[in-house]
């Protein structure tokens, strides 16, 4: 038998759909130049995609047809040589459409396989976010701003070719950098993209992650009702009504906290999260009312506390808030937990103020998608500069 290569591309639904498709297609085409057959496909269970919800695409390549057929006789690969993670915040794990519970980002990686991440962060930061694995693996960072666009307008900031250059570097048996560059040129792309692929190939640094490194937590799982446990007519219980909240300091009760779907959390859908300055809040109700995910708990004193179990990071709360800097969307990379902010503020207002300032200032601002025409053209030079490490 020949050799089978499997690459998975983990991406943000819709925002990076086109980008992921470019990459998986190019992997197969570049390998094909070296006589290796392959197939690129999106994971069926992730469709229909939703903005932000993690999704996957795969590229399967083999040294001969029979090996490829054998490799494709599975619903999806059970293990991969390379995992490409197109948005660093997904290092915390992914909860996709077709999966209940959290999957570690490195779950499918073979021993000594490589996790390629597009990120501006240092390796230590990303290693701490990824769940521990029994076997060692490698982490390679493609420096740059995670590339986000939408379904119709693509932001061509060279992320696709830079990731492909990294693949050529970590797994030259799959395709060489020369084959990749030739494929890019034959595809009618801007020749600068071949240069970007070469630059990324040359500059890539890789570190080995040992089994004792990373997030020691066990990823959460959910048990769903089996069909024998459902009620007549295949019905399932509704969510129960909510309850009042309790002040952690005074014990006063009031406000409202809704019950929530227990089997789907939004942790891994977020690239940003709102942080709230409770001292300047005027209790206008808008963030609470306009949140499509009902993520705000109403506290006994009538403040609004964004509950991180249900926040998907859309940013509507910041957009509707009439008070400057009261609700601020902050890069999700800066958080290692989902702790409640109001409770923190009630217990230590001064400490909370310091925490808030630090969270807002210490991490790069993110944006996620099309706001006006010409925006991507403005952003591409910045993205290319970040890729050069400036």
């Amino acid at each position, binding site marked *: 038998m020949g050799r089978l290569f499997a690459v998975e591309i983990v991406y943000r639904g819709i925002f990076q759909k086109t980008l992921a498709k470019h990459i998986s297609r190019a992997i197969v085409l570049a390998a094909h130049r070296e006589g290796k057959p392959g197939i690129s496909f999106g994971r069926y269970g992730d469709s*229909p995609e939703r*903005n932000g919800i993690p999704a996957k695409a795969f590229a399967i390549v083999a040294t001969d047809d029979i090996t490829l057929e054998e490799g494709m006789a599975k619903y999806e690969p059970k293990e991969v040589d390379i995992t490409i993670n197109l948005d660093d915040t997904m290092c915390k794990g992914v909860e996709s459409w077709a999966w209940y519970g959290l999957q570690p980002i490195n779950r499918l990686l073979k021993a000594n396989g490589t996790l390629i991440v597009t990120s501006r962060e240092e390796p230590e930061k990303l290693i701490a976010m990824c769940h521990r694995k029994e076997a060692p693996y490698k982490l390679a960072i493609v420096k740059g701003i995670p590339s986000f666009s939408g379904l119709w307008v693509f932001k061509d900031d060279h992320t696709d070719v830079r990731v492909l250059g990294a693949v050529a570097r970590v797994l030259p048996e799959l395709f060489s950098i020369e084959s990749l560059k030739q494929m890019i040129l034959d595809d009618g792309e801007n020749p600068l993209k071949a240069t970007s692929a070469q630059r990324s190939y040359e500059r890539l640094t890789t570190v080995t992650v040992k089994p004792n490194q990373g997030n020691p937590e066990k990823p959460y799982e959910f048990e769903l009702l089996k069909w024998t446990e459902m009620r007549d007519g295949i019905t399932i219980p509704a969510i129960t009504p909510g309850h009042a909240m309790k002040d952690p300091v005074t014990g006063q009760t009031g406000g409202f906290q809704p019950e929530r779907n227990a089997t789907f959390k939004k942790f891994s859908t977020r690239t940003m999260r709102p942080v709230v300055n409770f001292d300047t809040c005027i209790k206008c109700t808008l963030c609470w009312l306009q949140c499509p995910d009902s993520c705000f708990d109403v506290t006994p004193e009538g403040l609004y506390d964004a509950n991180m179990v249900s926040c998907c990071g859309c*940013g*509507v709360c910041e957009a509707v808030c009439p008070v400057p800097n009261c609700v601020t969307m902050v890069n999700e990379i800066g958080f290692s937990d989902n702790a409640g902010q109001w409770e923190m503020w009630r217990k230590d207002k001064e400490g909370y103020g310091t925490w808030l300032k630090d969270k807002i200032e210490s991490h790069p601002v993110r944006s996620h998608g099309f706001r006006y025409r010409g925006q991507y053209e403005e952003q591409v030079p910045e993205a290319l500069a970040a890729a050069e490490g400036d």
Partner: protein
Amino acid sequence: MATIDYPLPKLEPFKGQKKIPLEEFFTSGHRTCQGCESALVMKMMAKAAGPRTIVLGSTGCMYVANTTYYSTSWVIPWMHTQLGSSGSAALGTAAGLKALMRKGKMKKEPINVIAFCGDGGGADMGLSAISATLTHPDYNLLILMYDNESYANTDIQLSGSTPYGANTTFSPPGKVKRILHHRWKKNMAGMLAAGHPECKYIATVDMSYGLQAMNCVRKALSIGGPTFIHSLDPCPKGWDYDPMISHDLGELAVTTGVWPLYEIENGLLKLYGKTKEIAEGRYKRLPVRDYLLRQGRFAHFKDEDFDYFQSKIDQMWEKWLYPGIIPFRAELDKE
């Protein structure tokens, strides 16, 4: 004569933003997109209707994303119905409740019946069933159409509600032909109002104006008889924009005059909100460019396309018998 022989709910309008009840009847944990305005419609609709409500949902985003794989975000009872059958499901459920109450198998009490559908399920496939339902005066129910202007669930195919020129899976702009979709959007609420003279309440809403929208739902549920509400929902996936500007786009749809807000209550037409201010000359419509330029689905538009879109909106405001509602002129008004 119409006979509704069971009690109707008494749903007074919410008096202000701060008087809106805290309880949620459609809650968190659904798998909709970031910034999904249709999920907001579900939340506001359920909040306005209250706990004694049955919701029926035809296939679409608000079915697939909210009740995926035996999980749910609904606090009130919810049942799935087929794509084109929101009208029949609402009618059947209301008739069933009525029969059970008449036979003494259930306490006679007001129970709201709401069926929702998307623009594909409502304005395209379900039109005949909705129309038939609106002619039945004997049952109290509401059909709410959440219109995100495409078959968004299955990745943005063109629907009868997709606006002129928009990029969809079925209408990608090309080098030879820039505009592949040159049909004008269906005037659903106006069509139903004109075609169903006995229907007591039809309204258009926009969740960026949440309080007014919820009060429309409350009126629709308590007026007695079948009613219809059409909501325009910005869709970050299909319209291609940063989810953070969902709310702004909802406002722009109204302030540019693209989406007129009105209610028709027992035959009486009332414009409300910014639409009323525009009609009375107190607010100047913004150019439609402001709305279209912020959406990736119109990124291929050139000046002539913006001009055409603007001319159609101007025509709606200046030439229609009733701006935004009845798309013809009376002979007497001939210039």
